[in-house]
């Protein structure tokens, strides 16, 4: 087995929100543990899908991998380089190999730059091409993402959301990265455009052997695009495994609830399905529940769940879950 392209160990991102947001004069420090000790690998050429509800820390995790936010502790290695140990000049150099595609394509594009200038920026920053080769490269990138080169001098506001996302993808590709963090790349788009962008992202992966972290709350899209899926809850990864395994046979009660909540465009399925509807809201990441963080909403919780935080354990080969009631002998809580 080859070394993974991305390797994350005990990564944590904590935000100190003591004085900025809350008026406690000289009071207690308030720390939001957005990402609180996660470890995982991503193999080269793989797509790891990262799912979870708002506030679970998935966006912060994606940004921390590229050091767009500073980790509080832990290590991120990409292609053998310890990203967390780099000084800023080295980091800038390393960023060429890791790029990001954002949720809101319009907000992520400079409104005063033309499409050509936006795509040229990484080419110039990293000195990847100059003169006629640079121009050819911009046109080639536009063609790759399905934008007519007629648009090269147009501005972002002249495009639809789907086209803006194509510009964002072309910009990410311009740096010739190995690894792309795609943070909710389809959720702001119309339904008919979502399939176009999913197909584009998948084609680029096949053609360029890209490795993705695909962050989304849309479990249908994640199941479709991902090799493996990681499920996050309140700053922790609570389930990790092969995409179809996790979607079709989830272990964690939380994952089961997430999947049973996904509406399926088939009235027969919708009428027949048994839903596991969770009660209440996600607790605050400032003061998460003791022990298992999901226990306050878990239909299977017992007294012991409040005591110790369950580790992410391998319940089935290659399929991990963080639940103290699950074990190799008893991989399904519904079974008895």
């Amino acid at each position, binding site marked *: 087995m080859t070394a993974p392209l991305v390797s994350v160990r005990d990564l944590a991102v904590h935000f100190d929100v003591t004085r900025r947001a809350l008026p406690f004069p000289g009071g207690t420090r308030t720390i939001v543990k957005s990402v609180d000790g996660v470890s995982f690998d991503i193999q080269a050429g793989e797509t790891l899908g990262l799912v979870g*509800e*708002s506030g679970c820390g998935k966006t912060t995790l994606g940004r921390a991998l590229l050091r767009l936010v500073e980790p509080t502790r832990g290590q991120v290695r990409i292609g053998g380089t310890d990203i967390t140990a780099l000084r800023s000049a080295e980091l800038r150099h390393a960023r060429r190999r890791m790029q990001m595609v954002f949720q809101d394509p319009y907000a992520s594009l400079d409104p005063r730059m033309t499409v050509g200038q936006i795509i040229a920026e990484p080419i110039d920053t990293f000195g990847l091409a100059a003169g006629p080769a640079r121009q050819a490269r911009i046109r080639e990138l536009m063609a790759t993402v399905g934008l007519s080169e007629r648009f090269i001098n147009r501005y972002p506001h002249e495009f*639809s959301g*789907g*086209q803006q996302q194509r510009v964002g993808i072309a910009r990410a590709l311009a740096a010739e990265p190995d690894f792309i963090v795609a943070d909710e790349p389809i959720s702001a788009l*119309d*339904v*008919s*455009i*979502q*399939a*176009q962008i*999913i*197909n584009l992202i*998948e*084609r680029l992966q096949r053609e360029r052997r890209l490795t993705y972290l695909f962050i989304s*709350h849309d*479990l*249908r*899209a994640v*199941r*479709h*695009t991902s090799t493996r899926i990681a499920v996050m809850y309140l700053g922790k990864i609570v389930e990790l495994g092969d*995409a*179809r395994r996790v*979607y*079709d046979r989830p272990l964690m009660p939380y994952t089961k*609830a*997430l999947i*049973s*909540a*996904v*509406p*399926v*465009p*088939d*009235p*027969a*399925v*919708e*009428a027949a399905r048994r*839903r596991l*509807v*969770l*009660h209440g*809201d*996600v607790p605050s990441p400032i003061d998460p529940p003791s022990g298992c963080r999901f226990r306050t909403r878990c239909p299977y919780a017992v007294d012991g769940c409040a005591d110790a935080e369950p580790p992410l354990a391998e319940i089935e080969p290659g399929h991990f879950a963080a639940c103290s009631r699950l074990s190799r002998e008893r991989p399904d809580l519904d079974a008895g």
Partner: protein
Amino acid sequence: MTAPLLSVRGLRTYFDEDARVVRAVDDVSFDLAVGETLGIVGESGSGKSVTSLSIMGLVPSPPGRVAGGTITFDGRDLLRLPERELRGIRGRRIAMIFQDPMTSLNPFMRVGAQLMEVTELHLGHSRAEARAHAVAMLAQVGIPDAARRVDQYPHQFSGGMRQRVMIAMALSCRPQLLIADEPTTALDVTIQAQILELVRALRREIGMSVILISHDLGVVAGMADRVVVMYAGQVVESAPTVPLFERPANPYTRGLLLSVPSPTHAAGTTLYQIPGLPPDVAHLPPGCAFAPRCDRAAASCRQEAPPLVEVAPGHLSRCHFARDVYALPLAVRA
């Protein structure tokens, strides 16, 4: 057969922009029976939200105006009612909830006061009655500790809880018709499931009719009795829910259904994709508005606008090839 609760006929809602007329809703017709849930599906610019605003008499004017048609609610044409009478219907007999509860709730008012305002106005409740009713409504929509939370402000509620407050407000006069415009789009899936479950339960209890507007075919499949699919301001398909999903008769509906990643999709397969972009209703092509994106389009489609064709009883499709599309198996899924 009893008369429908709501009957929309030939509705046209136009917006005057500069020298142009944008036909946001262009000849839309549908019926809604008592106790029925109608799903309206469409992408941005399809006219689905403007249709609901037209029913509520809330189209911003100018630049918007209802240029034609009738909206008959319980025997009366809402478009011809004086504003005073419309006010007695809106909020009391027809209520609406929106995608973003924060834009519909007053951030400076306690939620209780906002709920009380509705029943004091429409039901003539005294303050004490209105307050008791507000607490009862909050409890009914599943807000824990309603007697205390009635005195809180909207920012003290989570997104899902705010949407519950909106629903409590909308339902506080027990309306006959609830219009829900993307009610769960801003919410997480587990909260979405809670809210949809709540709407299902309240629908049974109150016996109200619902118009559910959504871009999510899955949400509509689980909630609606009938579905209307809109594209470029027009109804392009209309059918009972099961036939619409099993045998769509319009290439657009078919494309939408095929392009949603489904749990039965084999890994590594390319999704079906509708090419091109949703249309700009200010610049529609001649003929069928979907023709530029349609893989079946023939020369006639680019010249002549297709009529609504009835392919089966109650199943309409706006397509020159409606019967051919209806005959296709929806088998690309597998």
